[in-house]
């Protein structure tokens, strides 16, 4: 075991680009999986932000972990297990937690239950420890072809579903009262989104692990909303950020002997830090060129109220 105080040894465990060309083909599948996840995470994240569902994402991912652990124990497909676990959680949260307060308490109840169940299944599982740990904190081992195919199918369903309901879901998310008055089926859409969210979470658990799902389902979208409010730019930027984090993380982790998730979470976080500082500067200066003109419309002497973000 390497000494814990030797920075050189740490560095070589974290970044090792020897034989990079030879290693690259080995992560071919992981890269595809990462790209799919970036697309799904970036798009779903936009609605997670709009609907204030960050905590729900975390709760769903713990039940997804329980499902995957149970699948491991009973030698069933792990992707199937995590999909079933997160769908169950997502539907429960969707059905029981229409209001935010209810929702948070239900998630708070479900989350430790799921985590405990998962821990139990893993404790009983006789297989390799790395497999167990991977479900919580991300995979080290390469993703096999069956898993990539499963993820491609999930991606098709989630992205297709989101595109289909995009406009009314946006309406129902940012402006629920008027959307309902305009005949948008807000409750049905809420349920549809929870199912799509469950699928996306199950997919993310495969790569970054249950504990770190938020890094691809929230952080990129949160970063995007810091620097844009355009309904076209936010999803595009969010997907871009998620792709950079997912693919960049996998490529950096290639020669390393630690899981890929810390690379993904760190890139994701750094992007957010940059966007956040750009965004807060923009808010301090006032958003776009409105100040003077708005004052004129709004009546003399009343400066427009700009709520600072921080």
């Amino acid at each position: 075991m390497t000494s814990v105080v030797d920075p050189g040894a740490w560095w070589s465990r974290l970044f090792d680009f020897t034989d990079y060309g030879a290693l690259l083909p080995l992560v071919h599948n992981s890269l595809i999986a990462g790209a799919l996840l970036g697309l799904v995470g970036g798009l779903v994240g936009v609605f997670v932000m709009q609907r204030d569902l960050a905590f729900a994402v975390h709760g769903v991912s713990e039940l997804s972990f329980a499902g995957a652990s149970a699948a491991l124990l009973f030698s069933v497909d792990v992707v199937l297990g995590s999909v079933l676990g997160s769908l169950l959680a997502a539907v429960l949260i969707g059905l029981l937690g229409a209001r935010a307060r209810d929702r948070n308490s239900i998630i708070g109840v479900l989350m430790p239950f799921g985590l405990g169940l998962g821990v139990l299944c893993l404790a009983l599982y006789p297989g390799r420890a790395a497999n167990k740990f991977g479900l919580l904190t991300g995979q080290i081992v390469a993703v096999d072809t069956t898993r990539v195919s499963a993820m491609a199918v999930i991606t098709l369903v989630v992205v297709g579903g989101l595109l289909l309901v995009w406009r009314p879901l946006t309406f129902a998310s940012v402006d629920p009262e008027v959307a309902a008055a305009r005949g948008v089926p807000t409750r049905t859409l809420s349920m549809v989104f929870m199912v799509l969210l469950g699928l996306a979470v199950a997919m993310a658990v495969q790569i970054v692990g249950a504990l770190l799902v938020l890094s691809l389902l929230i952080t990129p979208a949160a970063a995007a909303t810091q620097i844009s409010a355009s309904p076209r730019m936010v999803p595009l930027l969010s997907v871009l950020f998620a792709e950079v984090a997912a693919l960049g993380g996998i490529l950096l982790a290639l020669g390393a002997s630690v899981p890929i998730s810390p690379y993904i979470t760190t890139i994701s976080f750094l992007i957010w830090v940059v966007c956040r500082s750009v965004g807060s500067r923009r808010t301090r200066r006032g958003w776009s060129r409105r100040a003077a003109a708005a004052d004129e419309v709004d009546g003399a002497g009343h400066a427009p109220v700009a709520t600072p973000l921080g």
Partner: protein
Amino acid sequence: MHQGAARGTLSSVRNGSDSHSPLSARPGEPVLRLEDAGLAFGDRVLWSGLDLVVSAGEFITVLGPNGSGKTTLLRALLGMQPLSSGRLSIRGAPPHRGSRHTGYVPQQRSLDPVTPIRARDLVRLGIDGDRWGVGRHGHRAEVDELLAAVGASAYADVPVGLLSGGEQQRVRIAQALASRPSLLLCDEPLLSLDLRRQQEVTALIDATRRATGAAVLFVTHEINPVLPYTDRVLYLGPHGHAVGPPDEVLTSPRLTALYGTPIEVLRAQGRVLIVGDDAHTHHLEEAGA
């Protein structure tokens, strides 16, 4: 002065990009018809025997204490709540969810400052936010026109969460006008605005109905900002309802009858003050304040 300007641009909305479309309603034409309408939840009757015909361009102010069924009335008009009895039609047809004949202005709520949506996007949702799919680019001219009509062009690209309450309500009105409604339903749009903004928003709604011919149903606790524009009052009370011009409905004897408890209506400097002396009426003091 501002009102005049708003009126001018509103006419251009009406005749502008879609000039072959008919005026939302011809003046005097009945837009909304309630016949012997009643609404009850189990044994609890909110209102019953309500007869009301609202013509195009009319400004109806809906008053009443909390729980008297004002919001439920709006929900019925939006097709979200069936009547328990009687008939209801909007432009000759029963209301249905998502009807483009009705526009809806909600009360001002503080939106999260990071909600990724600009004023123009909120208006855009009023045009086609209820349709499936992603939606194409376009409608930009229409959105610009709507924003100009309510004097909100200056902050078209500002995130809605960063707008002041009065600015948000202007954008809301533009959003409600997006489907060229012949009936504008306003659900406490003045709540949490200061007096000056209340007057501005009310003046804008008045200018809107004059320009577009839309009838207005204005639910409010604040009588005084809407009093100058009100054609008729619909007062929903615990003991029945009353419909008529403000001077006829807002009188001590009528409100005493509606509440079943002594109520006094005071008038001073063109303002109405409604005073009662028990728990029933604390909201009324609010109304007159």
